[in-house]
């Protein structure tokens, strides 16, 4: 792999072969060693992205880069609709608008300790994983469901699932415009309607945490983060609804690709021009799935508030700090041009002064939430000017796996990880041991490495660190 170092943490892959533009990536020495160890498979995926029509220079990856399918995880690529730019359902991913939402509270770590076990049980019971029996009190008619797809969580807030203040702190206020339920299939509806308000499995989770370190007092103040206070982090997406939308459109785009003479380096990169009928239909369906995901995290927030109420925290307020997407394609203006930014396992990270941000955060930049693994820590960062000028306003989204699921299971053999976590003061509630084994701490890279690299490269600014106390896995 041919690349050159631009600065301590930034590298450039010059355009060659079928690449239409240069590519660039961010890495520390350790991250670079990881890339080398996998024979630069993720960087190869990045160069494939750079071959797509209408891509705006450069095609990028964030410091949490790892091997995906089609796009690498951590991939960011912008496309110019006026230059034949494309949209790629595989470049958004199956879990459309998979993302995270952070809640803050005035509950102290010590207070929580005394209610930890009943709270862990109430959370596990109250938030369905999505397979098997769900909550019986949820029932959405087709009309309700389609309204949610069009309008996002505002519909739920109107029905008592949360407060209007929640909406202020969601990326795009929880509603991507142009959502078109008609562009989604009957099967997407069938899979989605029963899974609205469920967590999912795999790397999805819900964590009760406490703030153990503040790095930037000003930003932490604006975000309402205080050392020793309890936070809750939700990681979930658009569930079967989004998975089905992606499935439907990858197939449809593969069949349409010859029509637009798009040569694909990887079939999972199937793409169609943004302005084509296929491209427009996908964007309508994708926006519906994105609104579903925002609504899903809204319902989960409601269930979390209920669980806290039932577990000795009656009347204590859980405020939505922020909710953001990790897998999306959005029209944004960068360098005076309207482009469609694909983020596949990357976070929108707008810098200070951006009018898209809630007023109370505007002077410090957008909150950027970077979950780590379940045994160590997660981080809150702030969006920067550097991200605006270098990465289409994007930053890292997580730690990234270093062990395959198979290897993790092997490493977990003969151990009781739930008990190990308990000895570290972390209560785990999970549907099965297999998920806990696969998601073990050691299976992930150290999120601190990703965060330090992001901070030092200037595409995010460290604000606070959060430590887990309760982990719920689907």
């Amino acid at each position: 792999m041919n690349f050159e170092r631009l600065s301590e943490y930034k590298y450039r892959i010059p355009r060659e072969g079928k690449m239409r533009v240069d590519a660039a990536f961010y890495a520390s020495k350790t991250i670079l060693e990881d890339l080398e160890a996998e024979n630069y498979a993720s960087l190869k995926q990045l160069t494939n992205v750079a071959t797509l029509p209408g891509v705006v220079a450069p095609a990028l990856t964030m410091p949490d880069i790892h091997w995906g399918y089609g796009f690498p995880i951590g991939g960011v690529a912008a496309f110019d609709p006026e230059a034949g730019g494309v949209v790629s359902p595989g470049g958004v991913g199956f879990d459309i608008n998979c993302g995270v939402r952070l809640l803050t509270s005035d509950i102290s770590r010590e207070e929580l300790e005394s209610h930890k076990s009943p709270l862990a049980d109430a959370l596990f019971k109250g938030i369905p994983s999505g397979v098997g029996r769900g909550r019986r009190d949820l029932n959405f008619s087709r009309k309700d469901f389609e309204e949610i797809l069009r309008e996002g969580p505002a519909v739920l807030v109107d029905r008592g699932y949360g407060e209007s203040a929640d909406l202020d702190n969601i990326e795009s206020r929880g509603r991507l415009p142009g959502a078109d339920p008609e562009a989604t299939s009957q099967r997407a509806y069938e899979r989605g309607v029963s899974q609205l308000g469920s967590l999912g499995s795999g790397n999805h989770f819900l964590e009760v945490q406490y703030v153990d370190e503040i790095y930037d007092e000003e930003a932490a103040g604006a975000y309402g983060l205080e050392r020793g206070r309890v936070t809750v982090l939700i990681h979930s997406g658009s569930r079967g609804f989004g998975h089905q939308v992606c499935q439907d459109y990858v197939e449809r785009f593969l069949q349409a690709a010859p029509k637009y003479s798009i040569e694909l380096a990887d079939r999972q990169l199937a793409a169609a021009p943004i302005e084509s009928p296929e491209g427009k239909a996908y964007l309508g369906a994708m926006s519906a799935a994105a609104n579903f995901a925002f609504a899903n995290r809204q319902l989960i927030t409601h269930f979390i508030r209920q669980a806290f109420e039932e577990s000795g925290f009656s009347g204590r307020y859980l405020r939505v700090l922020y909710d953001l997407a990790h897998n999306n394609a959005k029209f944004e203006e960068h360098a005076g041009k309207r482009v469609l930014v694909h983020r596949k396992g990357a976070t929108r990270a707008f810098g200070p002064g951006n009018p898209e941000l809630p007023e109370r955060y505007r002077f410090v930049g957008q909150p950027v939430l970077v979950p780590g693994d379940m045994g160590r820590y997660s981080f809150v960062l702030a969006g920067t000017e550097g991200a605006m000028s270098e990465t289409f306003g994007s930053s890292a989204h997580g730690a990234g796996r270093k062990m395959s699921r198979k290897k993790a299971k092997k490493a977990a053999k003969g151990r009781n990880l739930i008990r190990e976590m308990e000895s570290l003061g972390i209560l785990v509630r999970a549907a099965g041991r297999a998920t806990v084994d696969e998601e073990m701490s050691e299976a992930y890279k150290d999120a601190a490495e990703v965060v330090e690299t992001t901070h030092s490269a200037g595409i995010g600014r460290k604000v606070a660190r959060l430590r887990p106390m309760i982990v719920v896995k689907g």
Partner: protein
Amino acid sequence: MIRTLDHTADVGFELEAPSLEELFEEARRGLLLVMFERPPDRGGERETVRLSAPDLEMLLVRWINELAYLVQARGLVPTGSEPEIREDGGSFVLEAHLAGTELDPEVQGWQGEVKSATFHGLEVKRENGTWSARVILDV
């Protein structure tokens, strides 16, 4: 024959079988091995599946996605399939009579959802009389 692949973020498997039909049956077994610690192997319920695709790769993706849908949305775990595959006017048609049993996450050792089969690195081929396939799942 099913061999699991070590993909860092997701899971995958390589399959080998003497016939195309057996290859697709191996894909069913592979999927169940990803989803369950103790995949059920007997079931009395019946379901007929009919799929078509312009090529064998897409047919395999649709097959795996159809089976994952039956488990995750309908609660039916396919414990056996008798797929028949034929070419029909430039496309491939699969018809299968599935046997299945009800999903019981605890008894069957539910390991987690499969979001979809992907087209990344996907391959279905026949060499020296043996059919083989390679497929990566997003989990």
